[in-house]
């Protein structure tokens, strides 16, 4: 019995190892074949700096702006039962399953200069197309399910009787939400925010359709590859991956440290 289990274990380790290799090898290969000097040179280019900064800032803005509506929606979906709730739960996952270029096209129909929304924006002095505002909308569209799903899980895990007790202690519903539900669901929400931001940061398909310029880094990588070929694209790709990974690791460490602190409390 235990021998059979060992063989099974070995098979699993082997298959799992292959998969990890599949993820790591292309990245690692690219790092090895890129000359460090060229990475430094690329980092000095203003165009590249601007693009990376644009990508990071728009993805953060997309996450923060859309979380204002996403977190309340997640709370409603976690707590309330209403007709067609299952359909709503399906709708929030649509952006994950449709091709992102298709999402871009659909969005463009809503926010282009000819649309009602586009006209409102124009009268306010800006445009979604080929602007950071459009990039934010495209990033948010494709990444919002990650936050919604994590936040729904978080709110479901908050014991309902704690919210009820808080009401009987004299707290208004809003106060209960901000002092009980939100802090207790915060771990999941934070993970969701990081996931949403990461997904927005790496978005290409929807963004390129709405805003080729100003150029976010994924679009820049595509453009350089098209115009100059693989070798010339590698430095900016490596640089962008390094920055993304660094921010990701730091964010995860911060959220994990917070988690550990909470765990200590709960033991």
């Amino acid at each position, binding site marked *: 019995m235990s021998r059979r289990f060992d063989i099974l274990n070995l098979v699993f380790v082997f298959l799992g190892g292959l998969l990890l290799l599949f993820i790591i090898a292309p990245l690692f290969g690219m790092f090895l074949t890129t000359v460090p000097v060229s990475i430094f040179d690329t980092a000095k280019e203003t165009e590249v700096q601007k693009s990376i900064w644009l990508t990071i800032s728009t993805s953060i803005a997309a996450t923060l702006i859309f979380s204002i509506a996403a977190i309340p929606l997640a709370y409603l979906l976690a707590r309330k039962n209403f007709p067609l709730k299952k359909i709503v739960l399906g709708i929030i996952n649509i952006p994950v399953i449709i091709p992102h270029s298709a999402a871009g096209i659909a969005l463009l129909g809503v926010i282009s200069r000819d649309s009602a929304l586009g006209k409102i924006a124009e009268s306010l002095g800006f445009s979604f197309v080929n602007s950071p505002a459009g990039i934010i909308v495209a990033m948010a569209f494709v990444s919002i399910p990650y936050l919604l799903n994590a936040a729904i899980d978080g709110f479901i895990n908050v014991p309902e009787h704690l919210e009820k007790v*808080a009401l*009987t*202690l004299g707290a208004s519903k809003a106060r209960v939400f901000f002092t009980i539900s939100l802090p*207790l669901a915060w771990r999941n929400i934070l993970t969701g925010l990081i996931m949403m931001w990461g997904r927005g940061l790496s978005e290409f398909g929807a963004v390129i359709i709405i805003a080729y310029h100003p150029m976010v880094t994924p679009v820049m990588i595509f453009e350089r590859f098209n115009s100059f070929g693989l070798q010339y694209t590698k430095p900016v790709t490596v640089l962008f991956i390094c920055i993304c990974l660094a921010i990701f690791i730091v964010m995860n460490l911060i959220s994990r440290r917070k988690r550990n602190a909470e765990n200590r409390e709960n*033991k």
Partner: protein
Amino acid sequence: MLRIEKINKKIGKFTLNNIDFTVDKGDYFVLIGESGAGKSILLEVITGLLIPDSGKIFLNGKDQQNTPVQNRKIGIVYQKPTLFPHMSVFENISYPLKIKKLSKNEIIKQVNQLAEDTEISHLLIRNIANLSGGEAQRVTIARTLATKPDILLLDEPLSFLDVQLKRGMTSLLRKINQSGQTIIHVTHDYDEAVSLTNKIAIIENGTIIQTGTPQEVFQNPKSIFVANFIGIRNFFKGRLLKAKDQSESKVFEINGISIFVLSEEDENVLGNITITSESIIISEEKIESSAINNFFGTIKEIYETKLGFEVLVDIGIDISVQISRQSLDHLKLKINKEIWISFKASSVSFIKN
């Protein structure tokens, strides 16, 4: 004062029926019922967490229908501690005080006072996670008292505590009540109830079947549930009739079995009888004595109890008899043995419905 008037509430297949009672200021009101009887639902209706289908709740004369939960002055302590896990003990107790926008000094003063009253001063700086069940329950009570509720609702607050902790908590609850706090305490535990209360209501299947002082309720149990609660095993529903042979006597008929009863009630009255299991005699042969109730039966079950043995005898109905170990050994009682039981008419009490 809390007045509950004809409350009805349907949740799924369960219904609260016409719940009606009054709790006076300073009362320690105990609501007893088995699990699933509707106790917790009733408490949630009183707090406002559940809206009744019909009926009214008056607190100090004021209709609470349009008063939201947070503005009703009703605190609730659940079975399991409901402390907020992301806050310390101090923060938990000060939660309702912060809502009242008290000054920092006032909050510290009140928390310290509450902690002293509930004997948890040493716990204030602790994290919730490090508290024992009993400590957590005390903190929960302190937090609820911080709201200065008109009514404190307790939903089986002792059921997760061991005997030692229960005793401490019981005396704390008594102390809180004696300081003037009106309490409604829900439980399925008779011992818990009787040591604290001055008013009892019995709830069964969503209906309050009896209310009164503990003495009134337990001396005249109106249901098997209440009777079992206080250790009466022989409780039967039936009808009081005139005896066929002796003109003066009365008999109580249950499933065709007639039991002689001393009662001044009229004939043909429906009611219940109780026979204390200690007053019944078991013998191998029929004995001649002053006991006029003599029945032949078979032993169905024998269990050991705190005081000896309980023998369940089938005489057409199941009668429980309490005997000592010596008697059990002496009569060589065992399951399926055929025996006689006898008891006096005076050891049967009849309670009119």
